[in-house]
């Protein structure tokens, strides 16, 4: 994919822009407020999904609301991991560790099982879920700092293996330090936001006991996570367009060159790690609140691989792409669950759903061979001057292409994502 990047800007292929490119062109040309205006109905439609219960799309075997709530958490994780892997190019295989730390912070502060609550002190007072979330984010950010500062001097594969070890260590610590974490029994009855208390919902809409569809707890957690996703997207998007984001891209493309050009690479790698970690912690806090139960075995390292799957599948570096990747990862197995027929064709849905890791593994292998940039690849824009320059350059480029198309073009032109992330090493 790397060799044809620079040579592929032949005139002819640009006229046959793919649908994705056309959409992107149109979207990028819109002013920001119009983007929000166009985006809101789409967001509202997505938000209404658990209520509308559209046929075919709605899952059969499990509650659709819960699936979407899980998707919300995975989307947050994918956005966070995307900062580390997609933006900065640091392969983190232990991301589940941060997810676990976030969930456990909430669990340890609010669960009656928590060893911390047995002391007769301020720790024992009942914390509200909302009050614990910032603490969870802070604790995970700190853990990201602690892990990152010694290990980020390593590069590439070595970093991947060390982070893998870290993810496993976090799980083993949660399992073994029984006096500190509750151990393998886990922590139950974790706090959740109490809101919308009514007669049929005595514990509020967010309680796991609220199971009457369509407005069950899953739908409410989905909405909450959607709000958080939008906030995080705005923050991360602004970071991307700032000096920090430019440094990340520089580090990803060539760390040595970035260092020589004056980018304090270690500092910005650490930033990426800490920001990614805190987003993972936020997602973990959501998880703890929704399920109201954490247990070490949930945070197995294989989950890290699954999160990575979401990022790679969606397209490293593309925020919206990785959300789509998270959706695929969460939704597809659940889609097949409990289905006996699909469009009239009899299938054994439960069996297909249990094969999910097999399919994801094959998908990863095939994707790496034929489309290593993911399903929705990121387009590297001119970060410094922002969208306007990008749009102007695309227009000029299209005009030139249209002009050139009138003259014969060599047949060897290869179609390709012209400005995707190239294999530089």
């Amino acid at each position: 994919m790397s060799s044809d990047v620079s040579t592929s800007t032949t005139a002819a292929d640009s006229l046959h822009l793919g649908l994705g490119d056309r959409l992107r062109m149109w979207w990028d040309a819109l002013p920001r407020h119009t983007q929000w205006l166009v985006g809101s109905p789409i967001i509202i439609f997505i938000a209404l999904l658990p209520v509308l219960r559209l046929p075919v799309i709605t899952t059969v075997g499990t509650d659709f609301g819960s699936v979407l709530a899980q998707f919300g958490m995975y989307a947050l994780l994918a956005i966070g991991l995307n900062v580390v892997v997609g933006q900065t190019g640091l392969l983190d295989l232990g991301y589940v560790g941060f997810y676990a730390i976030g969930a456990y912070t909430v669990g340890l502060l609010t669960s009656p099982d928590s060893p911390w609550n047995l002391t007769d002190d301020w720790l024992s007072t009942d914390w509200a879920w909302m009050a614990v979330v910032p603490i969870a984010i802070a604790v995970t950010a700190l853990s990201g700092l602690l892990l990152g500062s010694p290990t980020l001097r390593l590069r590439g594969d070595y970093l991947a293996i060390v982070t893998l070890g870290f993810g496993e260590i976090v799980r083993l610590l949660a399992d073994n330090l029984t006096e500190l974490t509750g151990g393998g029994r886990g922590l139950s009855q974790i706090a959740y936001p109490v809101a919308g208390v009514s007669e049929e919902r005595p514990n509020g809409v967010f309680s796991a006991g609220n199971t009457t569809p369509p407005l069950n707890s899953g739908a409410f957690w989905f909405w909450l996570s959607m709000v958080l996703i939008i906030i995080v997207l705005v923050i991360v998007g602004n970071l991307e367009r700032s000096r920090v984001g430019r440094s990340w891209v520089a580090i990803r493309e060539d760390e040595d060159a970035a260092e020589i050009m004056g980018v304090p690479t270690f500092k910005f790698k650490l930033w990426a790690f800490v920001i990614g970690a805190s987003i993972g912690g936020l997602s973990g806090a959501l998880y703890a609140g929704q399920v109201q139960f954490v247990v070490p075995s949930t945070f197995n390292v294989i989950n890290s691989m699954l999160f990575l799957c979401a990022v790679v599948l969606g397209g490293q570096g593309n925020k919206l792409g990785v959300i789509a990747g998270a959706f695929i990862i969460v939704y597809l197995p659940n889609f097949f669950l409990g289905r006996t027929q699909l469009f009239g064709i009899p299938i054994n849905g439960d069996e297909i759903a249990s094969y999910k890791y097999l399919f994801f593994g094959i998908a990863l292998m095939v994707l790496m061979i034929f489309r290593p940039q993911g399903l929705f690849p990121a387009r590297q824009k001119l970060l410094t001057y922002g969208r306007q320059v990008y749009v102007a350059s695309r227009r000029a480029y299209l005009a030139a292409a249209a002009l050139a198309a009138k003259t014969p073009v060599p047949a060897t032109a290869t179609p390709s994502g012209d400005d995707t992330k190239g294999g530089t090493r």
Partner: protein
Amino acid sequence: MSSVLHAGAQVLADPMIGFDLGALARNFWALTIDGLTYGSIYALVAVGYTLVYGVLRLINFAHSEIFMLGMFGVYGTLLLLGFTPSGNAYNEGIPMTILYLGIALIGGMIVAGGSAVGLERVAYRPLRKRGAPSLVFLITAIGASFVIQEFVHFVLPKLTNGKLGGVNAQQPIRLVEPVDVFSIFGATVTNIEIAIIVSALVLAFITDRFINATKFGRGIRAVAQDPVTATLMGVSRERVIMLTFLIGGVLAGAAALFYTLRVPSGIIYSGGFILGIKAFSAAVLGGIGNLRGALLGGLLLGVMELYGQAVFGTEWRDVVAFVLLVLVLMFRPTGILGESLGRARA
């Protein structure tokens, strides 16, 4: 604020991690011998990581699954030989047992070596042709791990009528009963431990000679040092790469037999992962890319892990290995013996 400190002190008052140096001192020799047994298994698996890394600069993340397939190869061979899972060990007499173990060894080697070469063909070769960056290789390896694990998890039981694979570990087939043969400094050594350590050392020696003293080995070393020049000198790079994967796979198959002797109930689809990471740690510990380093690192890791287990408690065994890996990577990323097969780390 004082209440905060008070609470913290109360929580931390009980010792969370037992620290028992006495246990280490009492069982020092027993731990050393058991550690060497595990260590020689790690060493054999580590050779696979280190050779592939030396030649391709690639961490073959799926090597742990090759080892796992080797375990199933060993088990399948024993089933084919007519053994069935039973509580008691078959005591067939020494010559027959050695024969059966030899056949199982070959079975494991064929399965593991074949799948290693197959993995290279299917997963890595297309990427090499495209000149993909190393991250892409690593993600492919993760995908391949998934596929191999889930193959054994779901597909293999269908192919074998539930005799092999599936969610649960295989019912152990014990060919040999552990019998104490002699004691050294008060620690008894069993026949299984002797067999594992001696055969691993023999295999390690053969591998070392193969790499350092044969024409094929010279080809591997040449490609590791400089692929372009080696190709110009008439070494077929593709064949060297295939050979490297084959050697790694065959040794993983041997390690699989030894592991199933030591831990008969460990044959499960997810059984390769942790051991693979430890073997990788061993390779890094000794200096990745360095054959002798992998052997030394494996033995060291096996012993250290058991010392750590004695001092901190059984549940901390894996943590000891991971912490060791992190420490080595941080303070001496080139390992004890250095990276001798290739260039300095990028």
